[in-house]
């Protein structure tokens, strides 16, 4: 009986990695998925914290892909290690704070370690030559191969015929003739292949899976670094950048104001870690304060929060202020006028 070769597939949850894994399964390869969690991954239910996104499916697309494929999925937490990739990208950033090429190299490198530890034979990715402006250009495809250390153990089934032969092809573990030659940004070949395989409800094609490609998110991240004079972050920081209205009235503190019930509920979990303000006399948002504040700052912040409450046009609004580890106290303030909330405070 011939050996069944084993491939580790980088599963992002998008269409390309789903198809790449399926192509290998069709050749009788044992495939297991690896999904790396950087902290910046966009998930359907992260967006669905907000009620306006309740129509979106609350699912992890990598898990969903694995289930469609009938393969195991190993989700690997790389949040700590990823900091260096984001803070010091050798190949620079894309349009926003996205270090796509360094990210791809890092993930393939981690996958190489994983196959060595788990006795797998090679790695597959859903990369398509020319599809992405930064990490999938023709000239950088070999860069990923070389700098990751994966060498000829990295097979890209969707565009393999456009690339030099890899070890799985040379050794006959897979049939190169049954691999594909996709290239460019045209998604029609992938969609046709998805249809052929019977995949209908796949995640939105062409990425969008990383918050670092989002201009608004990147702006908030840079603001955080500037305010702290340090390009570092913790998990809670990057989670909170994903939600709420962020206003920085002074360089040393900002307000994170819930925009609706779902965000307020989520932010409630952070009230033991952050100074926070809640509207008492009227319906209103929960606000977390990030940065050191004195009593005068808190009174001003309370006036700002009152502006976003249902009492915004009243003469007085009562709010509860709670510092970490201290008893909450109430304060009654006049809400700031709309004009007093300066546009440049919005991060």
């Amino acid at each position: 009986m011939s050996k069944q070769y084993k491939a580790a597939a980088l599963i992002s949850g998008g269409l390309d990695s789903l198809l790449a894994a399926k192509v290998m399964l069709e050749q009788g390869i044992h495939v297991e998925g690896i999904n790396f969690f950087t902290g910046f991954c966009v998930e359907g239910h992260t967006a669905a914290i907000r009620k306006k996104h309740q129509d979106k499916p609350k699912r992890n697309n990598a898990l969903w892909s694995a289930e469609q494929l009938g393969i195991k999925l190993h989700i690997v937490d790389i949040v700590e290690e990823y900091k260096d990739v984001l803070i010091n990208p050798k190949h620079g950033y894309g349009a926003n704070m996205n270090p796509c090429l360094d990210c791809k190299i890092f993930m393939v490198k981690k996958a190489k370690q994983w196959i060595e530890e788990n006795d797998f034979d090679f790695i597959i990715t859903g990369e398509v030559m020319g599809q992405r402006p930064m990490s999938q250009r023709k000239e950088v495809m070999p860069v990923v191969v070389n700098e990751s250390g994966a060498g000829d153990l990295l097979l890209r089934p969707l565009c393999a015929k456009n690339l030099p032969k890899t070890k799985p092809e040379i050794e006959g573990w897979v049939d190169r003739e049954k691999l594909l030659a996709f290239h460019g940004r045209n998604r029609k070949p992938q969609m046709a292949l998805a249809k052929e395989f019977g995949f209908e409800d796949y995640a939105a094609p062409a990425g969008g899976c990383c918050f670092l490609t989002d201009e608004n998110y990147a702006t908030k991240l840079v603001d955080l670094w500037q305010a702290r004079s340090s390009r570092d972050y913790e998990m809670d920081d990057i989670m909170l950048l994903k939600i709420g209205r962020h206003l920085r009235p002074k360089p040393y503190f900002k307000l994170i104001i819930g925009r609706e019930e779902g965000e307020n509920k989520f932010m409630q979990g952070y009230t033991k870690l952050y100074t926070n303000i809640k509207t008492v006399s009227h319906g209103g948002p929960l606000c977390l304060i990030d940065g050191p504040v004195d009593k005068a700052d808190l009174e001003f912040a309370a006036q700002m929060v009152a502006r976003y409450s249902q009492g915004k046009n009243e003469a007085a609004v009562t709010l509860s202020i709670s510092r970490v580890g201290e008893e909450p106290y109430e304060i009654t303030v006049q809400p700031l006028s709309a004009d007093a909330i300066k546009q440049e405070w919005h991060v």
Partner: protein
Amino acid sequence: MSEHTLDTSRLLCPMPVIRTQNKVNELSDGDTLVITCTDPGVLNDIPAWCRINGHEVIGTEKNADDIIITVLVKHL
């Protein structure tokens, strides 16, 4: 066979799944893991992870402030 607990409150998916995965890998067949969560995404993700990996969700409890999911460990 023993019962274990895991608190993933405040974590957003996939972190509750990752913590569940890592904890389950330390447990034996027949053990149960009671997971406390606050992200409603777990209602989909932890069962999906269990289906993929052969484990069984034997209880789901939705409370006002949290969600409790109980997993029976069955390593493939």
